[in-house]
């Protein structure tokens, strides 16, 4: 079953106290694809991911993975929160952060094993951050910080990856490294769900798109979703978005 199951969201509704944040969301997130979640600020993108993981209470609906509630399979999930959720002045080094990915696997009252150390090193190498192993997390650039969090999720050996706006404040080099890893993970049959808001050229890196604005606007193959009408419904006004045509010309 490893890496073949999808996540099925059915009729999901989320409220913050009395304010409705998500209404009647039903969709599938497929393994083996890089799926992007798009929508304007406040559309409920972060809320969707948090609700899927049970980080905030769900009013109605179900989130199933392989027939079971996703909340019962959290050890298979790697989640990288939005930049703003992290205190970048916290006294931790790159290595400390990466090894957080091994905490659940290691179990209570135990020290990290040599296997865990190796996993941590491999994950750091993969995002090209070995040289920064002993740096405090606050002394890195935004792109480097994001790569460290990606390494943490890799060290976790998860089957399901959730990233909340990993490309905010990130340099081109980091963006390429991150997308390459996303595609490698997808090729291994993992589930990759990435929140983004940039409708620029990088959108061609996504296989599937979820377009959200409190309700589900569109979901499916990128080219089908990227219709002007869908974007208008999601973003509420004329938006300029990257056209596939010019990408072929440029390529």
């Amino acid at each position, binding site marked *: 079953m490893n890496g073949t199951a999808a996540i099925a969201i059915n009729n999901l509704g989320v409220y913050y106290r009395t304010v409705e944040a998500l209404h009647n969301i039903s969709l599938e997130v497929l393994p083996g694809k890089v799926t992007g979640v798009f929508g304007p600020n406040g559309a409920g993108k972060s809320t969707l991911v*948090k609700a899927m*993981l049970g*980080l905030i209470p769900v009013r109605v609906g179900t989130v199933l993975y392989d027939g079971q509630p996703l909340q019962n399979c*959290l*050890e298979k*999930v*790697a*989640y*990288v*929160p939005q930049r703003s*959720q*992290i*205190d970048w002045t*916290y*006294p*931790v*080094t790159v290595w*400390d*952060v990466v*090894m*957080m990915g091994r*905490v*659940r696997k*290691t179990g*209570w*009252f135990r020290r*990290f094993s040599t296997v865990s150390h190796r996993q941590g090193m491999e994950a750091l190498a993969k995002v090209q951050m070995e040289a920064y192993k002993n740096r*405090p997390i606050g002394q890195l650039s935004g792109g480097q910080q994001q790569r460290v969090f990606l390494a*943490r999720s890799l060290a*976790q050996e998860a089957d399901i990856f*959730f990233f909340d706006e990993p490309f905010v404040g990130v340099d081109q080099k980091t963006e390429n490294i991150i997308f390459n890893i996303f595609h490698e993970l997808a090729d291994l049959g993992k589930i990759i769900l990435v929140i983004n808001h940039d409708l620029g050229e990088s959108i061609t890196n996504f296989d599937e798109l979820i377009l959200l604005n409190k309700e589900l606007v569109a979901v499916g193959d990128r080219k089908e979703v990227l219709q002007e009408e869908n974007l208008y419904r999601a973003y509420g006004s004329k938006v300029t978005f990257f056209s596939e045509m010019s990408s072929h010309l440029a390529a």
Partner: protein
Amino acid sequence: MLETLLEPLQYSFMQRSLIVAIVVGIICAVVGSYLMVQRLALLGDAISHSVLPGLAIAYLMGANIFVGAFVAGIISTIFINLIRTRSNIKEDTAMGIVFSAFFALGITLITTIQKDTKIDLNHFLFGNILGVTAADVRDTLIIAFIVISVVVLLYKELLFYTFDKLGAQAVGLPVNLLDLGLMMLIGLTIVASLKAVGVILVLSLLITPAATAYLLVERLHQVMFLGVAIAVTASIAGMYLSYFYNLPSGPAIVLVTSGIFILAFLFSPGQGVFTHPPSNSGQIAILKELKGLILANRR
């Protein structure tokens, strides 16, 4: 010189109070590191003020005052959370409301009962470390053992949780349990510190050694170890100062701790005011800071 240093140790009350001062310094530095990284300094203050009525009631009932204080601390955090979650009032406001009410109740109770008993409000407010009994030493050691064991056993989980709550929750760590555990550690530590410094100054022992270490090192466990070293130094130095110059012990310890903080603040290699000026113009950093302050006030 050595003789002078050994002189106070011939008194058993000095031995006991030194042990308590050192042990309290150690656990405060460790637990205070968690308070600092979570920006919960105010919570430490709130809990320490809130234990006062518990002390008084336990004293009245003849119960263990450690237990009374701990229960009062727990009840106050429950009230704080109740106000915060059942209304739009923010956490710091809720803390302010609850801790001042508890503090007032505690002072009222103690003032009332101190007419009939021989207890002294000042001992609760500022500690009475020279009056610690052998039983107090035992209780302090037991609490320290619990606190340090929990921190060692749960270190990697607590690091993850305090750094990235959502990430920790997302991998299925029991974050509510970890949060409760941290609250227990804070409560126990404050209770153990009351004899040494009292409810008003305990915040200094919790926050200042950790903050000082934070200026000098870069990982949480290093902050804890260096914080402990600073706290132990300050406890010993404070006790000797208090012995030789007849100063109140709690405030003496706090003043030494604060002095070490000032040194680190000025001279820390990474973040010191003198060693790490905000810009590289020729002006001496501290003068610039002062000028900035004065100019800012004029505007």
